[in-house]
């Protein structure tokens, strides 16, 4: 089983574990791949850890602790899972009023506003229509009604390239589906959204500068790749995600939307991505992050908006948010 619980609710995860235990009793051997350390400790008898394609070791589950796992996966001590929050939200940067999808089963009457320098989390269960909401904002899905305001000015976004021109960026949930260009190089994956900046003499691309852009980002984000010419499909998930993030960094957006940015990524790379997000917030950008991991939402968001069945069920401030409140809002309309 390869990451079997990424789209399951807690009760569904419990059901899965019951099935696994039943199979175990029948004598079936189960190989369970996951990056969720609590799960691994809960369900496994033996744990094997790999890092960067290398085999690190095998331990009995009962002899392992979270810290030991993290240390093996990352190769060093990781004291904090999340970087310290040093950002201070400022004035309103982006606002959505009564956004409703043309699909009656999708998002309905969603309104919220975000601030400069803020990390705005969006929580909820699978099926809450969060991805659909940000796709609607970005021009990938059609909107029936509602308004979008950028820096207090009303804007219309009918297609993604319009959204990009307005200064929005979207790191999608499905890396392989609509994130990476598998057969293209790392360099081309980084540069594709910002080519306008590299044109000289009206239409000629400066390939040397494109290479430079890729090299700079590889260093800045610690992307592990043999060269800028390597095909991105041979990189690990975490590194691919960093390439996509640097693609958007290159367009210098004001509103940075990330949909499940650390899904399927190891704990070390996660920290690096959180650091990037905080860095951007410190520069005055707005980060909107959809996540299904409670600890992640609680770990770095300034405010958390929770959706349920396409409706907005509530917005919690960091100071008052906790797991129970988020879960309650996530199931409010079910």
């Amino acid at each position, binding site marked *: 089983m390869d990451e079997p619980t990424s789209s399951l609710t807690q009760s569904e995860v419990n059901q899965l574990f019951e099935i696994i235990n039943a199979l175990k009793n029948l004598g079936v051997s189960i190989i369970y791949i996951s990056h969720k350390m609590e799960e691994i400790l809960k369900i496994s008898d033996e744990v094997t850890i790999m890092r960067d394609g290398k085999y690190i070791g095998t331990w009995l589950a009962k002899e392992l602790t979270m810290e030991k796992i993290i240390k093996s996966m990352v190769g060093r001590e990781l004291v904090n899972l999340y970087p310290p929050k040093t950002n201070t939200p400022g004035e309103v940067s982006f606002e959505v009023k009564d956004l409703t999808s043309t699909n009656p089963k999708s998002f309905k009457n969603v309104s919220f506003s975000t601030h400069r320098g803020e990390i705005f989390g969006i929580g909820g269960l699978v099926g809450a229509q969060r991805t659909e909401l940000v796709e609607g904002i970005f021009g990938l899905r059609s909107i029936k009604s509602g308004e979008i305001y950028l820096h207090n000015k009303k804007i219309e976004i009918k297609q993604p390239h319009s*959204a*990009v021109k307005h200064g929005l960026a979207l790191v999608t949930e499905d890396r392989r589906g*609509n994130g990476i260009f598998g057969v293209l190089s790392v360099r*081309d994956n980084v*540069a594709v959204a910002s080519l306008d900046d590299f044109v000289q003499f009206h239409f000629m*691309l400066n390939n040397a500068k494109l290479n430079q852009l890729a090299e700079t980002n590889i260093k800045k984000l610690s992307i592990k790749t043999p060269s800028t010419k390597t*095909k991105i499909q041979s990189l690990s998930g975490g590194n691919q995600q960093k390439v996509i993030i640097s693609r958007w960094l290159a367009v210098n957006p004001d509103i940075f939307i990330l949909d499940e940015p650390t899904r399927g990524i190891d704990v070390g790379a996660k920290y690096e991505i959180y650091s990037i997000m905080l860095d951007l917030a410190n520069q005055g950008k707005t980060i909107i992050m959809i996540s299904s991991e409670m600890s992640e939402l609680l770990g770095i968001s300034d405010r958390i908006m929770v959706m349920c069945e396409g409706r907005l069920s509530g917005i919690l401030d960091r100071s008052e948010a906790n797991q129970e409140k988020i879960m309650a809002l996530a199931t409010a309309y079910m």
Partner: protein
Amino acid sequence: MKKFLNNLKGPNLKNTLVDNAMYLILLSILVLVSIVQPLFLSTNNLTNILMNSSIRILIALGVSGALITRGTDLSAGRIVGVGAVIGGTLLQRPDYAAKFFPGLADMPVLGILLLAVTITALIGLVNGLVISYLHVPPFIATLGMQSILYGLSLIYTKSQPIGGLKDDYTYLATGRILNIPILILIAIAMIGVMWFLLNMTKFGKYIYAIGGNESAAEVAGVNIKWTKIRVYILAGLFYGLAGFLLAAKSGGATANYGIGYELEAIAACTIGGVSTAGGVGKIQGIVSGVLVFEMLKTSLQFLRVPSDLQYVAIGTVIVIAVAIDIRKYLAKK
């Protein structure tokens, strides 16, 4: 080159052979036929092959954009025919007895060339609009266009063959500059143009992005509709030029010039490494794909293979070449 020779040593030999299968096949054909028929290597024959290839390369370059974006263009051959017919009917000798437009003034060759490629570029525009805005799959859109153009060509030419072309028009195909045939120079220039477009412009990068992952291209802000339209306009331009030169080369034109040429062009591109999965394709691959084809056709003749068997041979080589080439993309999973 050095890397190539280095790779010939050791366990990399197999991979090197597979990666460069196309060039090796090219070489093998050359060697085999020259042994049996030394005249194959004569300047005359090699020039013929390059001349025939020049026209075919223009068509292959034109269709490559469509292929890289995971589309196709089945109207290529007919658009070639349109280019030929426009050139042929408007550039006839003034004293030609069966002149198509009797009393037509003497027209400048370059002027008519511009007219021909403008018309074929517009045809490409229609293809692009139908594919981008009406969302008709490229296969169907261009297949329909193929049929429409055929009917229009028949009506325009009244099914009559066109001949009696002006000398300064046929000169394009017989003349030389610095002893290199003009046709070949034109082909080289257009190869340069296409190389530049694909490698040194935003347009080129967007073509590969759309082919590599159209949904990701959409999210990344690429204007997919407009890029695809430009791909088909550019294609129409290349086909029109090819047709115009084809008429000059054969001294005449008919409504069925270019029939089926798209299949050879697409096969040559595929042999040359343009992946059917999209997002992949290099100019040098396309050019060598066309050369392999033309060399193959000529060598079969030099080897005195009966013409009916030639079809079998060509089909077999295409399948084998693509099967070897496609391993490049399968193995790296």
